[in-house]
């Protein structure tokens, strides 16, 4: 079998070990302590595992999803317009700007750090685009690229000062918050507000819908098929290598769940104007960033640094490079988010990037389940968190509740989330999985 061929190349195999590795399946059972975590095969085992996880405090995305369901029930009972396709579609488009910024925040939180500059940087990106394309006549695509680069450069500067000189990230990015906000006001100049084109690439970012219903359904179908096939072949590969794999029943169950959600969402969009371009881009970003974090050694370095800086250093990880690049990523996504926000209102104005944007982006990452202490989280958390926050905003707006109250409620939700986080952490500690 080909799987045995590589075994002698880089393992430090003691002389007593046989030349041919034992069949992998034997190795698998022998390395596992017989007392613990022996999962029954098949579907029953899957449910048992799920129950054990919940009891041990490994809730994952469960609290957020329950929260979202509660939000839907409450607002729907207050106002029957909440769960209409039009409102849900609006929420989906509106959340993308803040959601993009929150994706960058997830990267920074994984390091156990914070980036306070993302709001201001997002404002700079919107203003740069408007100045370049409206005032200087730069082609839109070029202005978009330059605006995103502005964010990347700002983030790189923050990251480098933090990583190389050792200034606390909190202080560096606080300075960034002030500096970039001033920078934005400066480049907007006397105009104050610059209105952007009512058509074109930039306008389409937040306003284009794939009105052909086949697009939304097709996208859902592709997503479900790709998920199933990759899970299926991964499981087959694991089986062949003799390491534990997901049973087919579990893969099918997950695929069915995904299919239900994907087609329900596609149906909802198609009831309205069709699949929004903004949502397509956001989902693509989430898939890409999740892949980078969980399937590449760069992503592994970020998690390692969030777990233990000293261990990472001794493992030969280039800490300055990882830290700097993570802030560059944060700045880049802040810029992307800023462009979506500006596209939504077709203008760059002096208020962009200030107010509660920064707090909402951080809250979205945390509400979605990213740990404030580093080393734990996924970029999908940004989607769940920003869905919660935007739903609350829209639900309250439907009720005609003032912005002041909206903020208080968002604050309350964030508090509840961190309390749940702290409690589950305690449960995890007592269950030995801190």
């Amino acid at each position, binding site marked *: 079998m080909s*799987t045995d061929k*590589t*075994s002698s190349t*880089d*393992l*430090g*195999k*003691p*002389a*007593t*070990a046989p030349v041919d*590795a*034992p069949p*992998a399946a034997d*190795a*698998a059972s*022998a*390395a*596992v*302590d017989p*007392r*613990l*975590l022996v999962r029954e095969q098949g579907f029953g085992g899957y449910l048992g595992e799920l129950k054990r996880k919940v009891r041990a405090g490994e809730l994952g995305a469960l609290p957020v999803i329950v929260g979202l369901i509660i939000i839907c029930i409450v607002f729907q009972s207050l106002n029957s317009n909440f769960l209409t396709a039009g409102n849900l579609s609006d929420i989906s488009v509106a959340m993308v700007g803040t959601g993009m910024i929150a994706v960058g925040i997830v990267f920074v939180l994984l390091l156990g750090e914070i980036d306070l500059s993302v709001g201001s940087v997002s404002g700079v990106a919107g203003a740069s685009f408007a100045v370049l394309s409206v005032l200087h006549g730069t082609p839109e695509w070029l202005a978009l690229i330059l605006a995103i680069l502005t964010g990347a450069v700002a983030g790189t500067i923050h990251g480098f000062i933090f990583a190389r000189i050792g200034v606390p990230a909190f202080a560096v990015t606080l300075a960034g918050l002030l500096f970039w906000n001033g920078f934005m006001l400066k480049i907007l100049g006397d105009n104050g507000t610059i209105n952007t084109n009512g058509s074109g690439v930039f306008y389409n970012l937040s306003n284009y819908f794939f009105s052909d219903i086949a697009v939304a359904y097709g996208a859902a179908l592709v997503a479900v098929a790709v998920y199933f096939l990759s899970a299926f072949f*991964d499981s087959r*590969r*694991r089986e062949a*290598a*003799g*390491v*534990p794999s997901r049973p087919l029943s579990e893969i099918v169950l997950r695929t069915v769940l995904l299919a239900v959600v994907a087609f329900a969402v596609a149906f909802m969009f198609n009831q309205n104007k069709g699949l929004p371009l903004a949502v397509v881009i956001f989902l693509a970003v989430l898939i890409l960033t999740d892949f980078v974090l969980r*399937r*590449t*050694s760069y992503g*592994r370095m970020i*998690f*390692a640094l*969030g*777990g*233990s800086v*000293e*261990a*990472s*250093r*001794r*493992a*030969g*990880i280039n800490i300055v490079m990882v830290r700097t690049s993570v802030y560059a990523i944060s700045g880049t996504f802040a810029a992307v988010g800023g462009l979506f926000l500006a596209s939504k209102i077709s203008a760059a104005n002096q208020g962009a990037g200030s107010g509660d944007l920064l707090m909402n982006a951080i809250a979205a990452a945390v509400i979605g389940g990213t740990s404030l202490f*580093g*080393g*734990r989280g996924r970029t999908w958390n940004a989607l769940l968190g920003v869905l919660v926050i935007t739903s609350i905003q829209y639900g309250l707006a439907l009720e005609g509740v003032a912005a002041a109250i909206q903020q208080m409620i968002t604050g309350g939700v964030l508090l509840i989330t961190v309390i749940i986080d702290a409690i589950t952490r305690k449960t995890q500690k007592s269950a*030995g*999985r*801190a």
Partner: protein
Amino acid sequence: MVHVSATPVLALRGVSKRFGAVQALTDVELEVHAGEVVALVGDNGAGKSTLVKTIAGVHPIDDGVIEWEGKAVQIGKPNDAQTLGIATVYQDLALCDNIDVVGNLYLGRELKKRGVLDEVEMERRSRELLTTLSIRIPSVRIPIASLSGGQRQTVAIARSMLGEPKLVILDEPTAALGVEQTAQVLDLVERLRQRGHAVVLISHNMADVKAVADKVAVLRLGRNNGVFDVKTTSQEEIISAITGATDNAVTRRAARNAEVQK
């Protein structure tokens, strides 16, 4: 007797290291040959861990020369040591709590397939490695945070064994272990020697040292205080070198008690 090559794998010549006001190491000499286990002993704060960290590239040396297979080398960062073939298990283990066992074993040298982490292969090899080392843990896919101290120690040792090191340095590997696991680690050290690896073993436990070491190098207050052949040296002689006196812990206590009684 194990065959010992003429050129040492690692030789330290007059190595010094200072931390601010603390002169942690002064003119330290050390030679380790292939197929040889050198025990490094000394009281708390003698500089053993510091010496290990200079070899491993965690703390670059201030003075002196490190020779690797007869040639002077610069070890400025952990990567340099790894590239030479030095694997280190630190006293403070330095594992990432949030990452699972497989991830920790391969941290910094992940196996990749077309640029993507090859989790399946890493998991398969991890299981195989743990099995050959008779290491038992609940699952290779649980985070390090949920392992016991001894289990973490064995994971850290297993980590050092990946990538065929020429020199393995173990800083108090048995301090946190139970009887059975200590025996396993000592077996492991024996197997390393049989396979021709050079081993530096730090321990406060004279029984462990006597059981597996060929040579004992004593550090006292950051300086060499003798290198002894384990076969021909008594435990008392080693202990007196550690404490820096002809007397030992027992006679010291007796003397102190006598003073108190006066």
